[in-house]
């Protein structure tokens, strides 16, 4: 799946989000920088409230009136942050499409499946009548819905959760987007159905070269589909690395903790290593690194200053004083970690 190029498609620069809670502004996103290249797949992982969904809803201007979004979002030279509702609606669906966790609540319950796919085709591709109908049938066939012709005349409640998520994917594909943002697309599905949907997304990417942003709390799901992974904690990206590196050799103590806390089905059964404490409450800003109170390696500096997300090697970034820039190469970082495992 190496359709990724080096050409940036979407570049997020210093993006912040504050929610207005009746006069009081609560910051939930503390300035993130992220680049999605054409055709690449990037996973965003983190626990509830870390800002993984909020950041992409902000990109598409879907957060509503109570949100204050700052920073820049560049889509091939165009700054989305300054666009009005009208111009943004030309981006949504056509350039960047988004699918969500619960397909049943994203679909209109009183409209037939076919009509809802056609609507997207009319809007984004300017098709109409029988051309739209034929294209809708092609799309629903493409996403592996069995018995496509009959399904077009059914309502969402007549389809299973897995089938409805396929329909959502069909609608997202209607605009032939350059980027699909999938927010927990398989979280509500059973594992055997999840496997089907992940395979479908993989196939479609291989076929169309569409870039993918996969937002998930499940490290397993993300590792299955993504080439690059960004880990978020309390409204910041704390680590970003190629998938294979992140899982073999996590740099940030939080990533390390997340992986250690994950039970394994095959390794010898052993007690899980839990991360102590809980995620900080948004709006209660401590000086220093947000993870410091839970971090086994926190030092004086960690409690005083927020560590910047800095390149630790050419291909990865980490926001940690204990791990980052001083360590010159991947090899040194690895040996450091290896000695830690031994002791």
């Amino acid at each position: 799946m190496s359709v990724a190029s080096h050409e940036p498609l979407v570049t997020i620069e210093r993006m912040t989000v504050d929610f207005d809670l009746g006069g009081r502004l609560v910051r939930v996103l503390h300035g993130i920088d992220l680049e999605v290249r054409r055709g690449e797949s990037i996973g965003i992982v983190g626990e509830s409230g870390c800002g993984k969904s909020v950041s992409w809803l902000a990109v598409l201007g879907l957060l509503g009136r109570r949100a204050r979004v700052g920073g820049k979002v560049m889509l091939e030279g165009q700054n989305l942050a300054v666009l009005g509702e009208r111009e943004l609606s030309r981006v949504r669906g056509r350039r960047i499409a988004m699918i969500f966790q619960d397909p049943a609540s994203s679909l209109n319950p009183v409209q037939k499946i076919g009509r809802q796919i056609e609507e997207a085709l009319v809007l984004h591709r300017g098709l109409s009548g029988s051309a739209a109908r034929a294209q809708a049938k092609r799309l629903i066939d493409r996403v592996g819905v069995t018995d496509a012709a009959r399904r077009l005349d059914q309502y969402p409640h007549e389809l299973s959760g897995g089938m409805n998520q396929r329909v959502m994917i069909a609608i997202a594909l209607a605009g032939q987007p350059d980027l699909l943002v999938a927010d927990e697309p398989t979280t509500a599905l059973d594992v055997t159905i999840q496997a089907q949907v992940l395979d479908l997304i993989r196939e479609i990417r291989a076929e169309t070269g569409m870039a993918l942003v996969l937002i998930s709390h499940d490290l397993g799901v993300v590792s299955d589909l993504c080439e690059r992974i960004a880990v978020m904690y309390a409204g910041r990206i704390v680590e970003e690395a190629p998938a294979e590196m992140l899982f073999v050799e996590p740099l940030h103590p939080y990533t390390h903790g997340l992986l250690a806390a994950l039970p394994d089905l095959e390794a010898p059964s052993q007690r899980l290593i839990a991360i102590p404490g809980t995620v900080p409450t948004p709006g209660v800003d401590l000086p220093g690194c947000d993870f410091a109170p839970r971090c086994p390696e926190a030092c004086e500096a960690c409690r005083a200053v927020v560590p910047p997300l800095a390149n630790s090697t050419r291909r990865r970034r980490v926001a940690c004083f204990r791990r980052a820039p001083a360590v010159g190469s991947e090899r040194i970082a690895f040996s450091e970690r290896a000695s830690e495992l031994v002791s």
Partner: protein
Amino acid sequence: MALLKVEDITKHYVVRQTARLFARKSILRAVDGVSFSIPRGHTLGLVGESGCGKSTTAQLVLGLGPATSGRVLFAGETISAVRDERWRTLRRHMQMVYQDPLGALDRRMPVGEQVVEPLLIHGVEKGAAARRERALSLFEAVGLGTELFKRYPHELSGGQRQRVVLARALVLEPSLLVCDEPVSALDVSIQAQVVNLLQDVKARFDLSMLFISHDLKVVRQVVDEVAVMYLGRIIEQGPPDALFRQPLHPYTAALVSAIPTPRRRMRDRIVLSGDPPNPVDVPMGCAFHPRCPRAIARCRTDAPALSFIGQGRLAACHLVGGNAARVAA
């Protein structure tokens, strides 16, 4: 003697096929002949996908609704769903923990009082001070600071709430704890804390548990034996390590291989085609045969029984163990 013995229970619901008033009625077989037993101090895991009947089984075990047939024995006594004096006494010894702690707690009552309440209901401990003492000792046992005693549920985090629910379930010193998806609503880092806690309290209070979850990785961490359900029946049962390492039933094999794991990226995944069939319309023969990659002619006509394969393992498949030999002959 087993603490809990479930003998061939079934639960059928009569449902209308469509929303029309005079539509033909049909039977939904939520649980269709399930038997198992849990020895004292042991934990049985029930796993399977949504609609397989695992939660209905738990309800029948707790006597929360009548079974259509079969019976449940708790310490040698039959559990009925009639809510009489005896039912209440039995219920003192069997407690439950559900998925959503916020839904299980009373939002208008301090959490400490909610842990005291079962003692009042069952008249276990006399005197307010003694009850408070006992509740506080449970707070300590589940790793909650005593300063949280007077807090309300909304002031606690998800993990803390689930600890309160657990403290409340344990305050009566039950011998059986039924957990239905106890960690599914929690984030990974908190999930690990609660899984470890469950292991600790199990040892400390010598609990038997029925542990229901769709997450095989969590189940393996907690249980002594695991039973896999598909459309209302147990199709495979055995010790978790062996069962997950080398599944016998093709459904278990697909289930295990479908779990995405970060440390193993590219691997041979068995992707099942189609959705699980509707429990109103269970296929003839083996219920799994329409999705089974290995189905043979016999699977379409005969339903395989759950039978012993050896080494504490059971499977309901014509292609496994003794069954396979018979097919070949």
